């Protein structure tokens, strides 16, 4: 255990950061009732994934740039997703005056 | 297309013809159905005569055979990759069952002469169901067998659910679900046998040449037997039968108790025992015990019933017990008795349910204590009821005696691989039912038909109409003919039963086919 703290920053440390980010994202995704909060949690998940791509690119195949390219893709997709998601939520809010996801059960039963 | 295919397809063609007729012409529809089933009856009679001439000569040759000999075989490859054929034919057992079904459906059509609600759909479903039944009895390919089996079971749900009485949805659902559980067991067994044989064929005759590993037989045999047993009202899986029969309309009860329940006994013999003789030897005594419970328990259960249909249903549980008892006795007399009992019980219950329908149509009650003295106003129906009752208590001169004496002798004589003391004891317990049967039949019938007329409305009731006389007369005559001249019937089936016995005897010493 102490090795982890004493050794210089490497792959493992970066992975811990990304896993922490992912876990926070998952936690937010599963617990937030506010749709905007869920959207933010999804952003965290995407960022953690994006970070992983960059990390593995750096440590596994430093000569190639595939990881970076993928992360740029992810950032683009995330931006698009936020746009669509926020648009839906805004419309929803206009109609129902709430963005609480547990109340969105029109299709249930 | 050969004789056998015609026998299968004719009811289906009739159903198609009925479909063509506008629903409002319900009188035309029943005439078409009657013509179709009548033609089928004639075709069956013709086939029977041809078959009898061939099969009765083969009796000496078949005494040592282990392979079933089929007549009028038709075979077309269907799914070559899976080894599924359209493989149909007739042997003595199938022939007797075809005769039974043909008689019952003809009588059933006559008995449903007054179905005015959705006549068209009723007859279409009824005839489809019968197509399935004929298919089961004449197919010798396991896959085809299973397909027809499902065709026969499923229309029952709609027939009871739509045209039934009382808690019909409950009864229909219960019946279908229980039978489906049975089908699932059969399907598993079928696939197990298919894979274990390594032959890549569903051909029943070829599958029966294989000596399956004893470990496989041990668990597949009870699956088959229980699966078919559900349909054959094996205790404790019989409870669909009282509810189902009580709720079903007349013709459906007739067909169901008369024919469909026979699929159970037929399958248990044809598939379970024939394919898996080692398993049969191992489980024989266990199932003999269960069926003894069936026989005695069903007859005691019938004593206290108040509803005529429940009364008949419990007596069916008892009588179907004889079928499976005979199968579980694992010898020539047991098997023969089982087949004859299937036939005689089929005709007998068909008669009972037809008569109950006719009586109910007049008195509007099926509750036994509410009726009384009906013999005075409906002598024909009373006589037929008594004939049915006497046949069901095994009075010599009717088919029931031939069957029951075979089954009892089979159980008592035993075989060389099951515990003889246990078999004899079980047989003696089972014979008690002949007294109990006499008690409930006479009690029930005496209350309904004898004594003074209890309700003044009954004075205005009429006796059977011509169609009703035709329908019940046919069934009564069949019972009497088989009972008085059993040798014809025995000649018909005997040659086909030897292989079952011989394969049982030879199992364990046979050389594997592959």
């Amino acid at each position, binding site marked *: 255990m102490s090795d982890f703290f004493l050794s210089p920053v490497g792959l493992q440390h970066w992975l811990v950061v990304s896993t922490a980010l992912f876990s926070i994202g998952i936690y937010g995704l599963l617990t937030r009732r506010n749709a905007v909060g869920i959207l933010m949690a999804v952003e965290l998940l995407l960022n953690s994934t994006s970070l992983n791509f960059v990390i593995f690119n750096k440590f596994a195949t430093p000569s190639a740039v595939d990881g970076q390219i993928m992360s740029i893709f992810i950032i683009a997709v995330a931006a698009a997703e936020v746009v669509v998601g926020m648009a839906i939520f805004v419309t929803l809010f206009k109609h129902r005056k709430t963005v609480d*996801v547990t109340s969105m059960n029109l299709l249930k039963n | 297309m050969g004789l056998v295919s015609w026998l299968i397809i004719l009811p289906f063609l009739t159903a198609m013809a009925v479909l063509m007729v506008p629903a409002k012409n319900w009188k035309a529809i029943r005439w078409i159905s009657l013509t179709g089933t009548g033609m089928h009856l004639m075709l069956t009679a013709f086939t029977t005569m041809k078959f009898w001439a061939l099969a009765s000569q083969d009796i000496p040759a078949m005494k040592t055979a282990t392979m079933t000999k089929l007549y009028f075989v038709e075979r077309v490859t269907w799914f070559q990759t899976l080894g599924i054929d359209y493989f149909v034919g007739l042997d003595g057992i199938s022939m007797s069952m075809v005769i039974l079904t043909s008689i019952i459906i003809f009588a059933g059509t006559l008995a449903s002469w007054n179905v005015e609600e959705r006549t068209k759909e009723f007859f279409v479903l009824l005839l489809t169901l019968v197509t399935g039944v004929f298919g089961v009895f004449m197919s010798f390919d396991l896959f085809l067998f299973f397909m027809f089996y499902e065709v026969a079971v499923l229309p029952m749900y709609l027939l009871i659910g739509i045209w039934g009485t009382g808690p019909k949805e409950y009864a229909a659902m219960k019946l279908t679900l229980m039978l489906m559980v049975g089908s699932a067991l059969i399907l598993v067994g079928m696939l197990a046998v298919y894979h274990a044989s390594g032959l890549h064929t569903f051909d029943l005759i070829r599958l029966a040449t294989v000596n399956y590993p004893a470990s496989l037989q041990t668990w597949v045999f009870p699956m088959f037997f229980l699966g078919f047993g559900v349909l054959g009202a094996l205790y404790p899986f019989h409870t669909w039968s009282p509810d189902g029969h009580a709720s079903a309309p007349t013709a459906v009860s007739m067909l169901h108790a008369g024919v469909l329940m026979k699929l159970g006994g037929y399958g248990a013999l044809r598939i379970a025992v024939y394919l898996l003789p080692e398993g049969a030897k191992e489980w024989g005594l266990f199932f003999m015990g269960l069926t003894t419970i069936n026989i005695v328990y069903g007859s005691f259960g019938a004593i206290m019933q108040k509803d005529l249909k429940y009364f008949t249903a419990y007596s069916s549980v008892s009588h179907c017990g004889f079928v499976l008892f005979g199968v579980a006795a694992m010898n020539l007399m047991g098997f023969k008795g089982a087949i004859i009992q299937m036939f005689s019980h089929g005709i007998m219950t068909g008669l009972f349910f037809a008569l109950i329908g006719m009586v109910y149509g007049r008195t509007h009650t099926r509750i036994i204590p509410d009726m009384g003295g009906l013999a005075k106003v409906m002598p024909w129906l009373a006589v037929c009821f008594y004939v049915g009752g006497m046949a069901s208590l095994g009075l010599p001169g009717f088919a029931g005696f*031939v069957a029951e004496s075979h089954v009892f*002798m089979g159980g008592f004589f035993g075989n060389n691989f099951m515990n003889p003391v246990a078999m004899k004891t079980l047989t003696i317990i089972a014979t008690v039912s002949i*007294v109990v049967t006499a*008690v409930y039949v006479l*009690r029930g019938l*005496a209350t309904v038909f004898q004594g003074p007329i209890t309700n003044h409305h009954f004075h205005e009731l009429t006796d059977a109409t011509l169609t009703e006389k035709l329908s019940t007369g046919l069934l009564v005559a069949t019972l009497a003919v088989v009972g008085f001249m059993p040798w014809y019937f025995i000649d018909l089936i005997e040659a086909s039963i030897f292989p079952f016995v011989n394969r049982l005897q030879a199992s364990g010493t046979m050389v594997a086919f592959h």
Partner: protein
Amino acid sequence: MHSEQSFILNNVWLIPAIPFLSFLTLGLLIRNFPKKLQDQLSGIVATLAVFSAAVLAYWLAWEYFHLFPAGVAKQALVPWSFEWLRYQENLAVNVGVLVDPISVLLMVVVTTVSSLVHLYSTGYMHGDPGYARYFTWLNLFTFSMLGLVVSPNILQMYVCWELVGASSFLLIGFYFEKPSAVSASKKAFIVTRFADLGFLLGVILLGYYGYNLFASVAPSLHASGLTNVQPFDFAFLTNPEVMNQFMGMSDTFMGMGVLTLSMVLIFMGAAGKSAMFPLHIWLPDAMEGPTPVSALIHAATMVVAGVYLVARMFPVFAASADALLVVMYVGAFTALFAAVIGCTQDDIKRVLAFSTLSQLGYMMFALGVSSMDHPLGYTASMFHLFTHAFFKALLFLGAGALIHAVHSNSIWDMGGLAKKMPVTHATVLIATLAIAGIYPLAGFFSKDEILVAALESGHTGVFAIGLLVAGITAFYMFRIYFVAFWGKPSHHSEHAHEAPISMLIPLIVLAIFTIGAGFVPMADLVSIGHSAGGHHGINWAVAGPSLFVAAAGISFAWFMYVAGGKQRSAALAGALGGVYTTIKQKFYFDEIYLFITKKIVFRFIATPIAWFDRNVVDGGVNLSGWLTRASGAALNSTQTGQVQTYGAWFVGGAVTVTLVLWIFFL
């Protein structure tokens, strides 16, 4: 000893076949005719059919008994048979016709009584709405009974046994609107059915062991000329070699030897049909049927089927001494038991029914005391069967004439009928004297022979019972005779008049038989076993006491009912108190049986089973349905519709899988 020349010997099957054809004609054809024509035809057709069968039977008897010279044992012939039912190889039922002394004797009895009863019925049943139905069933019965009599094998016997039971059921319940007749018919059928369970088991047992012996015995049987024999055949079962093998069997079943057990079981069937104690309860109730039916079925023919069965299987019974002892004790006890009850009954037909029971007991114990070495009882039993058929049928038909005249069954409603109905009176007196055992009427000879057989066999106790019963019989028979014919007419019998001629002819014919039957040289005709011939003439050492007790019985009846009037008998009944009531209530056997069936079988077996099935077994099925629904309902709450919940499940699952993989596989 071949019979090629004789038409009737080769065509014995005609005798049962004619009533059967008549039954079919009546049941299928004439039934559809208009009511009036139907009534006219059915009586004539049925009566003619049975009369022609009777003619053939007499012809057969003549031919058969002249076939063998005197002193030569009369062989059993099977002139006609065919394979009816094949259970398996070497186990088939050959339906056929067996001609031997007792079957010929019974054929004569059955056809004679049956044809006379048919004739009588044309008068007695005249105008009854069920006239045609009555004759249809009477023909069915005659056919079944003749089929039973000629059975060459035990399974055919069983088949016809059941058929006579069924026709008896139909005829007892002939007045099907009368609740008492309905319950009597049910009772008769169910009680005999219960006995037949024993018979069936006995048949199966014999069939089983016979089949096992068959292979080893068959060659020597074939050598001795018994070709085409099957294990069920009497020829096989009574064959000495087969019986030796049977006796040598070490198998026991519940502590009894195979042979004894099967014979006891078969006797159970015989006891049911012949209404032996304790299966006697159905016969008195069977009197609910029309009186001619009682005469034919429940006095002369069907009830003797049990005796006939024991006689038919006699060599086998004799091989098992224990079974024969059972026959003897049951027979002797029934004779006494029924005679005692007979003294207290008021219904004339019931008195006659109990006297039938008692006389059947005589026949049974006569068989029970004999053996293959001392076969006198066998001959005596058949002789008594023969004579009893005539005088008891006569008594019943006479009683029918009385009932017809006074419209009541109670003897107290009769009285003073001797002058109003002279022919009936004369014939009934002859029969009453005959049953009381007065010389020279038929009953005297046969009863005497039975008593001699009992005495010679060394069973003095049984002999004493026989003698006692003879006295009681004379008492109760003369009780009804005196009450019905003598004394003052009651208001019922004031307007009584003599029966029509069609009813009187059978009475007269039967009276002639009753007088003459005793002189038939039965010992020459019917015998079995080693000492041919047997008892000839009258053994006055036995006949003397028997005549004396009969006279004593008659005198006592006169003392009680003629000299003393009603007061004396009432005083005696009062003095006996509870004993009298118990006897009059037939020792409460009906109540005991009713208690067993209604209270025990129905309440403690059938009802719980019905409940168990509806609630426990079916409950199991419904439970499985409920469990499916309940588990569905339980899982339903996990389906919130929230993606977040599913996501939580998903993540939890993924983490668990990862952990499991990590812990166990890393």
